[in-house]
């Protein structure tokens, strides 16, 4: 398993967990609204990273580590936000 495969696997697992969590939220609660937004954002950002890797592999180009690091930083930021804003 190369680096790209590893990153995609982690992201897919994160998406699955996040989507599962979204379905379990109590939609009537006001706290859930912020959680819903944050975990939807996590899903979207993970999707963007997976699409980036898939596109670069398709073009037979190297994925830039800086974009993957920035994406990971974004995901960590969102996870931390879920603790602060909910």
């Amino acid at each position, binding site marked *: 398993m190369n680096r790209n495969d590893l990153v995609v696997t982690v992201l897919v697992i994160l998406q699955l967990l996040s989507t599962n969590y979204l379905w379990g939220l109590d939609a009537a609660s006001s706290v*859930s609204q*912020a959680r819903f937004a944050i975990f939807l954002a996590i899903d979207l950002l993970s999707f963007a990273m997976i699409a980036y890797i898939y596109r670069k592999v398709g073009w037979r180009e190297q994925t830039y580590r800086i974009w993957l690091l920035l994406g990971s930083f974004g995901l960590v930021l969102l996870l931390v936000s879920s603790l602060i804003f909910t």
Partner: protein
Amino acid sequence: MRKEDEIVARLVAWFDSRLGLSHPMLRPVPEYAVNPFYWLGALTVVAFVIQGVTGMLMMLYYVPSPIQAFQSTQYIFQQVYYGRFLESVHLYTAYAMIMLAFMHMMRGYFVSVHKKPREMMWVVGMVMGFVTLGFGFTGYLLPWTVVSKSATDVGIGMIDALPAQISSLISFLIVGAGGDATELLRFYDLHVVVLPAVLLVLLTLKMYMLECHGISEPVAGVVGQEKRRLIPIFPDVSLYLLELAAVFGSAMLLISVIFPLNLPPQYSPQLAAQFTPQPDWYFLWIYQILKISIFEGAGLPVALSLVTLLFILLFLLPFIDRSEKRRLSDRPIFVTLGVIFVAELIVLAYWGLITPGQIIPFEQAALVIGGTALIIALVSFGAYWVLFSRIKRQTSSRPQAPTKLATLFSFGALATGGAFAIGNTMNTTVNIIVQGLDWWKALLLTSSIIMLAFVILASALLIYRIELPNGSLSRRIRFLEKMIHESK
């Protein structure tokens, strides 16, 4: 081929064979265009789609009548599942749509996409920009809060300052026969039916023209063959757009969490009387211009005419800036004017934000507006001068010309004179309209216009002159662009 890749390839092939995706109407895109700056317009469309989806969900609950508008909005906030989240995302995506449309326009201005053969794309894009602002104006009223209703009433009140025929037509179109109920219903219809339909028609037209002309060439550097490689719309460019859209969407979601929307109190005439109306941020610059003392009362039509003139100039830009030169180095005047335009918008909007309801003395306004223009002009001149002189020093063995300080002072004097001439022309024009024409005012206006023309001509001559000692300005910038390109 690995098993996973084979599955993905088979999945793509299945969709391709059923939907004909590899035979799209859209032409392939050169690789140099795989850059977010080329897709600001596409991101504006993404924002429009999000607006459509969130707006349609809110339409299920919203009632466009003065009695129920606020209650139904409050119901969405408090009772509907994820209602507050929907409202917040709708608002912040609307802001993003306006900002992206503006960035798209200014990028187009600086990289000269408005030039032959894309003149009509620019004009259609400007109309789309107006429609986007129309969305903001009409949508602002719908919650029927004291903030939204008061600000919209001020905006509608300005229509009365226009000539009678025009004002009655516009009033009929946006307010109807009169009264709160008709006004709200008309705004709602415009917001959810008319403007989206117009925008979709214009978008189709623009996409058609984009297909005819293709994506414009980059202005900087020499584009290598590898960057000219054509990339198909499906799946590569589509995937890239999805990446951008996903990042944009997650940013909107995060912003809506960090700054959740709070609903201001319901509109009532009593509450509105205690409230200083202020438009949303994208109209603040116009609001600030209208608050300048000379435009109060009878001067209002002049202010509106000036703003209209500015929009007309923007519309007609491709027919004014007709030179085929596209490089920044070849367009110092238009580049400087563009930077001044952006800086003035920011300054006026911020100033409007911190001085709600406050009348601005004309002298103060002339100082701030003229001063901003002067500073930007000097900085722009300095940037062109220093940057290209340095490059020249590194590349030429010829001695430097010794007259730089004098040139700098000359340019500063011209810019000061220009700011004074603009201020005086505006002041005299307003005085003539308000107090009538007499010999003294006619003389003053003529001398101001002559002075302005002199400043423009002398500045152009000066810019031309400063190129002489160290060679052509355009050659120096081309050299810089080539250096940057090679360093990449």
